[in-house]
C-alpha cells in the first residue's frame, strides 16, 4: 500500500486552506465547546455526518423499541370484561391505559397508536437510514480511498432533511399519534382523525425522509462511480460497497414513487380529491399498488446493507476471500433488479388471479440470489481461520436468523398457503426475522466491527459477546412463537385475541425483555468503551481494505495522507500480509500443494 498512517505527524507539502491540523483525528475537539458544536453542525465531513446519523438512528431505535415493548406488554393477556359479584364492570388485560374508569375503546385506541408508532419509527427512522446513512457514510469514501463523498454539502443537506422529517414524525406522535399503521392503507388513513393535522404531519414526515434517502443514494452512486482510488476496479471493491451500491440504486429509483403517493394522500385528506377513496371516485387498491411499488424494493434497501456488512465481517474474521466474490456482487444487483417486479406479493388477497400467479412466480425468482449469498457465506467458513470476536458471533447469528427469515418466505410466496398466512403473525415473525434478525443484527455486528475505526477505542469483547447471546436468544424467543400463532390463525395488529393464543403471546413478551437486557448490556459496553476503552490500533483485525490499512483509528480529518493506490483486492488474505499488524499476528496460510494451484484465483 502506498501510505502508512502510522507515520502521522510527518510533514506534508500539499496546500490546505483549513486552519486546523489536518493530521489530527476527525474527532479532535475545537478550542471551545461552542466552536466544537458549530463545527459538527456545519461539517461536510462524511465521517462526522455518519457518526451523527449513527447516534440519531440509535436514539430512534430506542424510541421504537420502547413502543415495541409497550405492544408486547399490552399483549401479555387478552382484554376481558367481567362483572363482579357487586355488579361492577371490570376490564382486565389492558396494560396501556389505567385500569380504573377505562373502556375497551380507549385500550384499543392506545394500542393502535403505539403499534403504528413502532412501525413508522422502525421503518422510516431506523432501518431505512440505519446502515447506509451511518456506516455507509462513514465507510464508503474510506473503502474507496476517497477524501469524502462526491457531494459533501448535499450529504449535510440529507442529514438536516432527516432531522426535519424526524421532527415532523415526533411532533405528530407527541400530540397523540396516528392509528393508520405504517402502511397508511386507504381509505382508512384518509378518514381517521378527520380534521386533525397530525396524520398529515406523519405522512409529510415519511415524504420528507424520502428525500434524505434519495439524496444519500445519489451521493453514493456518484461516489462509487467517480471516486475509486487508482487501481481499484469494480471487482476490487469491498462487498460492503457493492451492497451499498445496489441499495442506492433502489433508493433513487423507488423513493420518488412513495413521495408522489404520499402527496396524493395529503391532497385527498385536505382537499378531498378522490384518488384512493371510493366515495370520491378513487380506488383503494391503486394505493396498495403505489405503496408496495416503493415499499417492496425498500425491503431490499433494508436487507442489502445487512448482507453488505456480513460479507465484510465474515471475510475479515475468517481471514478468507469471500467464496464466489462475483456471485455475491452480482446477486446484490440481481436482488436490486428483481425487487422492482415483485411488489404484488403483498396483495395476493387483493388482486386478480393472473396478477397473483405472475407475482408469485417472480417472488420465487428473488429467493434464488438470496440463497446464493447464504451458500457463499457458509462456504467461506471452509478452511477459514475463524476468530471469535463479537462481530463474528453476530455474523453467525445473522446466518441463523436470515436462514429462518428467508426459508419462511417460501410459505408466503406460495399462493394457496399465503391465502391462509397473509396478515397473520406468521408474516409478522417472517419480516421481523428479515428486518430485525438480519438487518439490525448485521447493523449491530457492523457497529462492533468498525467501532474501533470510528471511535479509536476498543470495547470489552467478552461482555459484548454475552450481550449478543441475550439478544440472539431473546430474539428467537420473541419471534419463533409468532410463527406458530400465525399458522393457528392469529391476525396481526390485534389489541386483543382469543384465549388459545395466550401462551404464545406470553413467550413472545418474555423474549422481548430478554432482548432488552441484551441491548442495555450493549449500551453499557459502548459507554464503557468511549469513557475507558483501550486505544485501538489502526488495523486490529488484520483486514485488507483501505479503511483499515491506509489510515489511523480514528481516521484523520482528510482520511488519508496521500491518495491511496489499490495494489490488491480487499480479501486477498492468502497472498498479502496485512500492514499495520505485528509480524506473525496474522500469518499467511501454508502454500498450496502444486496440483491445486490452478484453481486458486490470485492477483
Amino acid at each position: 500500500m502506498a501510505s502508512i498512517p502510522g507515520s502521522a505527524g510527518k510533514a506534508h507539502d500539499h496546500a490546505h486552506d483549513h486552519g486546523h491540523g489536518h493530521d489530527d483525528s476527525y474527532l479532535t475537539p475545537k478550542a471551545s465547546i461552542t466552536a466544537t458544536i458549530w463545527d459538527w453542525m456545519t461539517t461536510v465531513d462524511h465521517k462526522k455526518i455518519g457518526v451523527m446519523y449513527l447516534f440519531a438512528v440509535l436514539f430512534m431505535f430506542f424510541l421504537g423499541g420502547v413502543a415495541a415493548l409497550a405492544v408486547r406488554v399490552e399483549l401479555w393477556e387478552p382484554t376481558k370484561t367481567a362483572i363482579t359479584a357487586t355488579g361492577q364492570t371490570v376490564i382486565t388485560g389492558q396494560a396501556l391505559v389505567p385500569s380504573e374508569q377505562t373502556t375497551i375503546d380507549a385500550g384499543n385506541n392506545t394500542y393502535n397508536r403505539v403499534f403504528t408508532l413502532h412501525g413508522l419509527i422502525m421503518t422510516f427512522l431506523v432501518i431505512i437510514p440505519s446502515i447506509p446513512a451511518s456506516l455507509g457514510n462513514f465507510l464508503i469514501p474510506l473503502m474507496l480511498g476517497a477524501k469524502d463523498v462526491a457531494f459533501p454539502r448535499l450529504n449535510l443537506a440529507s442529514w438536516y432533511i432527516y432531522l426535519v422529517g424526524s421532527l415532523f414524525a415526533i411532533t405528530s406522535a407527541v400530540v397523540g399519534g396516528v392509528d393508520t399503521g405504517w402502511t397508511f392503507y386507504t381509505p382508512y388513513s384518509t378518514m381517521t382523525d378527520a380534521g386533525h393535522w397530525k396524520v398529515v404531519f406523519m405522512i409529510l414526515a415519511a415524504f420528507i425522509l424520502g428525500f434524505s434517502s434519495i439524496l444519500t443514494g445519489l451521493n453514493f452512486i456518484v461516489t462509487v462511480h467517480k471516486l475509486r482510488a487508482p487501481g481499484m476496479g469494480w471487482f476490487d471493491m469491498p462487498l460492503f460497497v457493492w451492497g451499498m451500491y445496489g441499495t442506492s440504486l433502489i433508493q433513487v429509483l423507488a423513493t420518488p414513487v412513495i413521495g408522489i403517493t404520499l402527496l396524493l394522500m395529503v391532497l385527498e385528506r385536505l382537499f378531498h380529491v378522490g384518488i384512493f377513496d371510493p366515495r370520491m371516485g378513487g380506488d383503494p387498491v391503486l394505493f396498495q399498488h403505489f405503496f408496495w411499488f416503493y415499499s417492496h424494493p425498500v425491503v431490499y434497501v433494508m436487507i442489502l446493507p445487512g448482507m453488505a456488512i456480513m460479507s465484510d465481517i465474515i471475510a475479515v474474521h475468517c481471514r478468507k476471500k469471500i467464496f464466489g466474490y462475483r456471485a455475491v456482487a452480482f446477486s446484490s444487483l440481481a436482488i436490486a433488479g428483481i425487487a422492482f417486479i415483485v411488489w404484488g406479493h403483498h396483495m395476493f388477497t387483493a388482486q386478480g388471479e393472473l396478477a397473483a400467479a405472475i407475482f408469485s412466480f417472480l417472488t420465487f425468482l428473488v429467493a434464488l440470489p438470496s440463497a446464493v449469498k447464504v451458500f457463499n457465506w457458509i462456504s467461506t467458513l471452509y478452511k477459514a481461520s475463524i476468530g471469535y470476536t463479537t462481530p463474528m458471533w453476530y455474523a453467525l447469528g445473522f446466518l441463523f436468523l436470515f436462514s429462518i427469515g428467508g426459508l419462511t418466505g417460501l410459505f408466503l410466496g406460495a399462493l394457496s398457503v399465503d391465502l391462509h398466512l397473509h396478515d397473520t403473525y406468521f408474516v409478522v415473525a417472517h419480516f421481523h426475522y428479515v428486518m430485525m434478525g438480519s438487518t439490525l443484527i448485521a447493523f449491530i455486528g457492523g457497529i462492533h466491527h468498525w467501532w474501533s475505526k470510528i471511535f479509536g477505542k476498543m470495547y470489552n469483547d467478552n461482555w459484548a459477546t454475552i450481550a449478543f447471546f441475550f439478544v440472539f436468544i431473546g430474539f428467537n424467543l420473541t419471534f419463533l412463537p409468532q410463527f406458530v400463532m400465525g399458522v393457528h390463525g392469529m391476525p396481526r395488529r390485534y389489541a386483543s385475541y382469543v384465549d388459545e393464543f395466550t401462551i404464545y403471546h406470553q413467550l413472545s413478551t418474555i423474549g422481548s425483555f430478554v432482548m432488552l437486557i441484551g441491548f442495555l448490556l450493549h449500551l453499557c459496553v459502548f459507554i464503557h468503551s468511549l469513557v475507558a476503552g483501550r486505544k485501538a490500533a489502526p488495523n486490529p483485525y488484520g483486514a485488507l481494505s483501505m479503511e483499515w490499512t491506509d489510515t489511523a483509528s480514528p481516521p484523520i480529518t482528510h482520511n488519508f495522507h496521500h491518495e491511496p493506490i489499490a495494489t490488491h483486492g480487499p480479501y486477498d488474505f492468502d497472498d498479502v500480509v496485512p500492514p499495520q499488524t505485528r509480524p506473525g499476528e496474522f500469518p499467511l496460510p501454508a502454500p498450496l500443494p502444486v496440483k491445486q494451484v490452478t484453481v486458486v484465483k490470485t492477483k
Partner: protein
Amino acid sequence: MNAASLMLGANDWLHSFWMKPGNSDLSVNPDGTWHWAGVDGLFMYILWVCIISFVLLMGVMTYFAIKYRRRPGVAQQRSANHSTALEVSWVVVPAIIVFIIFFWGFHGYMRAQVAKVNAEEILVEGFMWSWDATYPNGAKSPWTVYLDDNRDSEGVGDRGNVPVPVFVVPAGRPVKFRLTSRDVVHSFYIPDMRLKMDTYPNRYTSMTFTPINADSEKDQAGTLTPLTAKEWAEPRPGRDHYIFCAEFCGKNHSQMAAILRVVTEQEYQKILAAWSDIVGRNPPVEVGKIVWKAKGCAQCHTVDGGKGSAPSWLGYYGQPLKFADGRSLDASLYPELQAGASFEDVWDNYIRESILNPGAHLHEGYPNQMPSYQGKLSAGEINGVIAYMRQLNGKARAIDTQMPGEAAPAGDAPGTPTPAPASN
C-alpha cells in the same frame, strides 16, 4: 419401527403441532384426513424443505465454525474460493424446489378462486367493526355468541362486551362468499378453512370452498373452544370456526370477529327459513335484542350502563336529553307529531330518526360517527329496537313482549313508512 413409519409419525406430529384441523376441501379429505394436494399438503412440503435445508445449512456452518476456529500455532490451510460446478448446482437445485412450490400453490389458489356450479352464494359485507351476511333467500343471521364460553352471558364477554354474529353454511355443498365492504378495507379470514380475502368498498371479491364436517365440536378432541347458543332452547349441532378481520380497519379491528357454523344440509334449510322472518316470529323486545346484537349496535352502545363510544341504552330512554347544538329533546323538534304527543312519543321519534339519520340531532358529548341504517333495518326491526329500549328502562308496554298476532296488529308492517310509532 422402520424409517418410513418414523417419518410418517414425525410428519403427523408436525402437522398437528402447526395446523389446527381444517374443515374444507381445500385442506382435508371428506373423511377428515388432510390431503397432499391441498393447502396443508403444500404447507407440509414447504415445512420439510425448510427443516431439511435449515438443518443442513446450520449443520455445515456449525461444523466449519468449530473445525476452523482460529487456534494459536495452527496454520490456516489454503482452499479454493470459487467453484463453478458448485455454484451452478446451488442455483439449479433450489430453483427446481421453489418452482414445484409455485405450481402447487397456484393449483391450490385457483381451487379457492373458482366456485363450483352448484355453490351456495352468500353475500358478506364488512363494516366497522362487524360482519353482515345475506343469504340467497334474503335472510340475515340473528344469532350471536360471545367468544369465550366461560363468560357467555348477557353483557359479559371475552374481548369486550361485544357479541359476534354466527353465520351458518351447509356441510358437503360448495359455498361461495361474495365479499364487499361498507366503509374501509377489511379482510374476511377463516383460519380453519385456510382462506382469507380482502373486502373493498367499491368492488366484489370472492372465496369458495366446500365445508366437510358438521359434527359438533364437543365430539372432537383438540379443537377450538366450544360455543353455545343460549338464544335457542338447545344447542344446535354444528362445528364452529372463527372468522377474523385480517386487515387493520381502525379502533376495534381486534373485535371484528364472527363465527362460521357448519351444519347439515337439513339443519341449514330449517335455519334459513327461521331467519327469513325474525319480526314475524319474535315479540318486539326480542327483535330489538337480536338487532342490537346482530346489526352492530352492540359495538358502540352498551345495555348495562357501561361506557362505550356512544350512549348506553340503559338509563337513557325517557330521560331529559341535551343535544350538541344546545337544544334539548322536546316536541318542538318534530312538528309533524300530533298535538298532545307524549314525551315518550317524542323519544320514539327521536330514536327512529337517529337510526335512519344519525347526525340530525347529535347527543351532547358524542361525535357524529354512527352510520345510517337507512335500508338496513326494516320498520319492524326499528320498532323492535324502540321496544327493547323501552323495556330496558322499565317503560315496556304489553304489546312489546307479546308474540306477533297475539295482540292487535301494531300497524307497522315492513316497508310502510311511519313518522312515529305513536299508535302503540
